[in-house]
């Protein structure tokens, strides 16, 4: 049997984990920044999740009882939505990107390390601005901030809200510039565009959307702030202003933005499904290019959010584009099904969340198509059906991808494995909690329960009880993960460089990686998903020889703590 040999440099022992204090300071190391992003985003996730719990508590009964007034309810769902989107999902994916992209490309860091840190440090003040709204009367116009609600009927917190989103937008533009340049310029020799891991492709496509769409958000927010503080009347119909101006510009940003929120999740999914089915990804090029197609077509569908406010003649074109955009998404779904089909599937926590994503996201996609057809949307608009739709894509999709990504890369980030049993409990609670929270919303939505209102018709109460209690289960499930993370950081099994026997470059270095990521130049395998071939086995063996044995989840055997004994340097003929 021909064995491929790979030149290998010196041996490498895992780097020590950085001191905790490193994470609370300005740092330009992409790994530190990545963790800063992720941990901060998770904190916002918990806060915004707490708000969701209060929302569901209020909705246990048809009357308004928990809240002092409708206004405080408005505030809750406004900050819940805003924080989940802008301070959780978007920065969380930026955290994965920051940590993983340079590693996957075999680079020492991002193209602009200083800019990277700067982009991160814009976020904490932005989060504080949102929360500071509570001292001046918080925003209450929803995350979509439609005028005139957001202009003449909102307290000063709305201005802080807009400033905060401005900062977050700037942060994501700077981050995206960094990703694009890193991916374009810093690939290692031997890695062409079509040898990049799909997570890198997804981040690339996402970043293109960010740089093209976010400036429109900046424009819209500027006008909103001027209307609120400088006496302009862009959105004030009595002075010849036009509220549809906001809707147009906002959705021209925000529909593409929903792909900002899910494309990196698609990327994570591609990694998970291929590694944990031990099979090459099915239709690599189609999956890579469909991200780009989604990025572009995503700019043509915005008015499907405005079917009820738009001139009727314009509805049909937007309905057609909304259907077209389902095609590249469908291509991905089939690519993923083809990937797992016939694979040697490992049903570990990472993979379970991957499969969970697949099943739930498809439901969200289908309800999206339903809403994309004008006759349906005219009835469904602003009902709980819409709430169900976007939670299926954003929680069932993005958040499941994030969870899967955490189980998958935690060993790389920390050098320790997460506890599998707790992981499975977390998955079961999340999956069923999620399903029974959000699926029944289809029913109440079709029956006409409006969104964003604290009181509802008593006929919906039984459904809302089911939804509420499932939501509490879902909320609780988060803490299983938090507990698992805390315990495993200190007590988890030592992971070693490559516990999943994955082929992408982030695994071809110790866990956690040393300063500047690689000792010597890393050598990418010719195909990031070429599992199951002799060449890939030879590659993995060469890497194991170099970095020492990794934890093997299939044949668990504890590795010695901290420093795995490095195997002797392989000599020629090995």
């Amino acid at each position, binding site marked *: 049997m021909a064995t491929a040999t790979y030149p290998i440099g010196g041996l490498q022992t895992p780097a020590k984990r950085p001191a905790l204090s490193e994470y609370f300071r300005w740092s330009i190391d992409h790994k530190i920044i990545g963790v800063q992003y992720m941990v901060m985003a998770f904190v916002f996730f918990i806060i915004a999740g707490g708000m969701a719990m209060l929302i569901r508590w209020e909705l246990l009964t048809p009357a308004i009882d928990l809240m002092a007034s409708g206004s405080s309810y408005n505030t809750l769902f406004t900050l819940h939505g805003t924080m989940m989107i802008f301070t959780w999902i978007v920065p969380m994916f930026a955290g994965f990107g920051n940590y993983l992209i340079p590693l996957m490309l075999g680079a020492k860091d991002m193209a602009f390390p200083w800019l990277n840190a700067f982009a991160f440090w814009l976020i904490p003040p932005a989060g504080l601005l949102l929360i500071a709204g509570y001292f001046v009367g918080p925003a209450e116009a929803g995350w979509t901030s439609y005028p005139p609600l957001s202009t003449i009927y909102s307290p000063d917190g709305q201005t802080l809200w807009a400033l905060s989103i401005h900062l977050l937008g700037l942060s994501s533009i700077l981050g995206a510039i960094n990703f694009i340049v890193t991916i374009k310029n810093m690939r290692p020799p031997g890695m062409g565009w079509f040898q990049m891991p799909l997570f890198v492709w997804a981040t690339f496509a996402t970043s293109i959307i960010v740089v093209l769409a976010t400036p429109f958000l900046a424009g819209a927010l500027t006008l909103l702030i001027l209307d609120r503080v400088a006496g302009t009347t862009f959105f004030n119909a009595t002075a*010849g202003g036009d509220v549809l101006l906001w809707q147009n510009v906002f959705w021209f940003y925000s529909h593409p933005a929903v792909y900002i929120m899910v494309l990196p999740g698609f990327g994570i999914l591609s990694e998970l499904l291929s590694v944990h089915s031990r099979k090459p990804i099915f239709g690599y090029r189609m999956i890579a290019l469909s991200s780009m197609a989604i990025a572009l077509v995503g700019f043509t569908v915005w008015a499907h959010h405005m079917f009820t406010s738009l001139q009727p003649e314009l509805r049909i074109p937007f309905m057609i584009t909304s259907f077209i955009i389902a095609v590249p998404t469908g291509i991905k779904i089939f690519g993923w099904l083809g990937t797992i089909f016939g694979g040697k599937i490992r049903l570990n926590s990472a993979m379970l969340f991957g499969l969970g994503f697949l099943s739930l996201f498809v439901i969200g996609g289908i309800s999206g198509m339903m809403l994309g057809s004008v006759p349906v949307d005219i009835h469904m608009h602003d009902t709980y059906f819409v709430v169900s739709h976007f939670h299926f894509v954003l929680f069932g999709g993005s958040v499941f991808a994030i969870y899967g990504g955490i189980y998958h890369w935690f060993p790389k980030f920390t050098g320790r494995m997460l506890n599998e049993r707790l992981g499975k409990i977390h998955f079961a609670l999340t999956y069923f909690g999620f399903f029974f929270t959000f699926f029944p919303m289809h029913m109440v939505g079709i029956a006409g329960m409006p969104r964003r209102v604290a009181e509802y018709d008593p006929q919906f109460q039984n459904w809302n009880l089911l939804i509420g209690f499932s939501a509490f289960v879902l909320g609780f499930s988060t803490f299983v993960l938090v507990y698992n993370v805390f315990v495993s950081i200190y007590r988890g099994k030592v992971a070693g460089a490559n516990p999943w026997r994955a082929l992408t470059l982030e695994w071809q270095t110790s866990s956690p990686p040393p300063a500047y990521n690689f000792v010597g130049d890393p050598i990418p395998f010719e195909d990031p998903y070429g599992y199951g071939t002799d060449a890939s086995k030879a590659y993995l063996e060469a890497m194991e020889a170099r970095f020492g044995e990794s934890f093997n989840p299939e044949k668990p055997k504890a590795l010695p703590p901290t420093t795995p004994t490095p195997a002797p340097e392989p000599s020629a003929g090995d």
Partner: protein
Amino acid sequence: MQRDLLELGLTRQEQQALQNKRAGIFIFQASWILTFVCLIVVNWQMRFSPNWMPDPNDRLGVVIATIATAILGASALLVRHAVKVVNNQNLSEFLRLWLISILLGGIFVVLIGYEWVIVPTGTQYAQVFRVMTGFHIVHAVSIGIYLGLVYVNGRKRVYNVNDYLWAVEAGAKLWYFVLVAWLLFYVVIYWI
């Protein structure tokens, strides 16, 4: 040619860094110009407002703006020339050209600022006009300040003309951005 020679003197890492910066600034420009495009969209949508321009005489004439545009154009051309000169290692000539460009930029800002003040208010036209020109002036002034810093550093001989001067290249590129953004606005505000 000279410029390429200077760049050839860079190490591989420095070359990579330079390439990154060039790509970065290009993407930044491509992205940020869209904020200007966004305001053009606003301008266009507000034209449908009943309060757009009830009295057609409110529209400002093109004379001052055209002079300002010509001045900004000249300024950008001088900047371009200055970059060539500095790459030929002629620092004093560079400083002279750079200073003139900044002063021309200052005249541009004053002229457009004058338009901002005199536009008859009370209409959507005036409001959009002020936001567009004001937004542009903010960019012209901040980038102008950056050009000023480059000038001051040049005077203080912070730069060594034998090095490749990214600060100069970046300043020039940002100043072109100011010009391109203005040309878009100029056509939309004054001619369409």
